[in-house]
């Protein structure tokens, strides 16, 4: 029936509007729980949310060793060519050639923090850090080399 549907429509609409108003009315009357971070003022006590992603970093251990094998999985996974893996060949003590990274170049200005590179990495060499104050005067400063100078691959990572 057309009329019944029409009346149902009207009452359904009014009810759903009332539900929305009730929710925001609750927020309005419970003003004590505030989600605003007053950022520059609370820089010392600022706590980032767990899932916040600020930039890609490569952790190194105390012997200046990282876990990156130079497999370029992260480079392939990146949707907008943020990561560039430049590889070289190390000579192992046995005299064999072994693939390793020369530089892992990361363009912060292109990165959308999508986390795909971290997911793609088979050896968990890269992680997302929570730093966020990235502003600089020259965009070339945003192009970073993730592996530290003279670092080498950790033992037992293939």
């Amino acid at each position, binding site marked *: 029936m057309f009329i019944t549907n029409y009346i149902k429509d*009207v009452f359904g609409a009014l009810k759903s509007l009332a539900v929305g*108003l009730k929710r925001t009315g609750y927020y309005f009357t419970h*003003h004590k*729980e*505030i989600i*605003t971070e*007053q950022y520059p003022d609370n820089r010392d006590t600022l706590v980032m949310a767990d899932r916040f992603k600020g930039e890609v970093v490569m952790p190194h251990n105390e012997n200046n060793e990282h876990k990156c094998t130079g497999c370029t999985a992260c480079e392939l996974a990146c949707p907008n060519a943020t990561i560039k893996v430049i590889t070289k060949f190390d000579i192992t003590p046995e005299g064999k050639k072994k693939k390793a990274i020369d530089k892992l170049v990361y363009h912060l200005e292109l990165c959308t923090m999508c986390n795909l590179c971290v997911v793609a990495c088979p050896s968990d060499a890269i992680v997302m850090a929570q730093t966020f104050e990235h502003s600089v005067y020259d965009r070339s400063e945003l192009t970073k080399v993730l592996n530290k100078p003279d670092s080498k691959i950790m033992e037992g990572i293939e």
Partner: protein
Amino acid sequence: MWSFNKIAGIVDQWLNQTFNPTWALVFEMVIVGVCVIGLFAVLGLVLVIMERRVAAWIQIRLGPNRVGPKGMLQSLADTVKLLVKEGMTPAGADKFLFNLAPYIAMMVAMLLMAPIAFAKDFQIWNMNIGVLYVSAISSVSVIGILMAGWASNNKYSLMGAMRSGAQIVSYELSAGLSILAVVVLTGSLNLNEIVLSQADGWWIFKGHIPVIIAFIIFIIAVTAETNRAPFDLAEAESELTAGFHTEYSGMKFALFFLAEYINVFIVCAIGATLFLGGWMPFHIGHWESFNHIMDYVPSSIWFFGKTFFMIFLIMWFRWTFPRLRIDQLLNLEWKYLLPISMFNILLITAMAILGWHF
């Protein structure tokens, strides 16, 4: 007791004693004009800060809190910023219409102030066709919007203006019909008489369900007519180009912005007058002692209290509901609000004839 009415009386008496009646009238007009402009300025500042506070509270934020005590001077600082900004006119624009449009918007708002009863016996012009005047003048505001959109020489502005025009013209109908509901019950177009007719209870209580329906339709329709969210298609549909005032900057933009807020105040004042009794204190039938206690609260406080309550309602809508698309908007008006309000006015007419209201 201290009241607007007495002050106005004293000023009137003094002017008539000092000057001849013509000059006294001229001076009174000037004083009224200055008062209205002052009221506009204060309302603009107060409503903007109120809007931002309500928005912040609803969204569990802090809102403005830097300028002045608790951020209360923020809108004043914004005004100063807008004053010193450059007022640009685009090269291909129709300069005359472009610069005229914001003043039309403000002028309409100013004209609408005339019949509003701010307190007991305190009105700029007690005309006997107040309601008709309000609904006639308020439809002129669409001219300012169309003028601004057309003169900007910008496709977004033109489309924004056309959307806004379609919207205002459509919603004028159900706003008018819901206003008629109270006119039918009162039997008068005079806003002051409408207020006086509510001395034994406001219409929203006296008129049962039909008047409550009329009130709901009125709120929806005036929200649309003042171009406020969820009906702010004048500003944007899905793109955020600010619709018909895309090309406006500085003080000309501020005038449009101010006119929007003043219009909100005016429609809320009209709504408060028609449905919530205007300056009439909260009276219940013949409970003389209770009514007498209520009379101790000044009438202007009742008026502004009700008006700001309605303004809060409209702000609450803005920060709760998602924006409508243009086809949904026209659908809502022509398929739902108009038939319901037509049926409702029949019901109210029958109620008025049979005397079913209190």
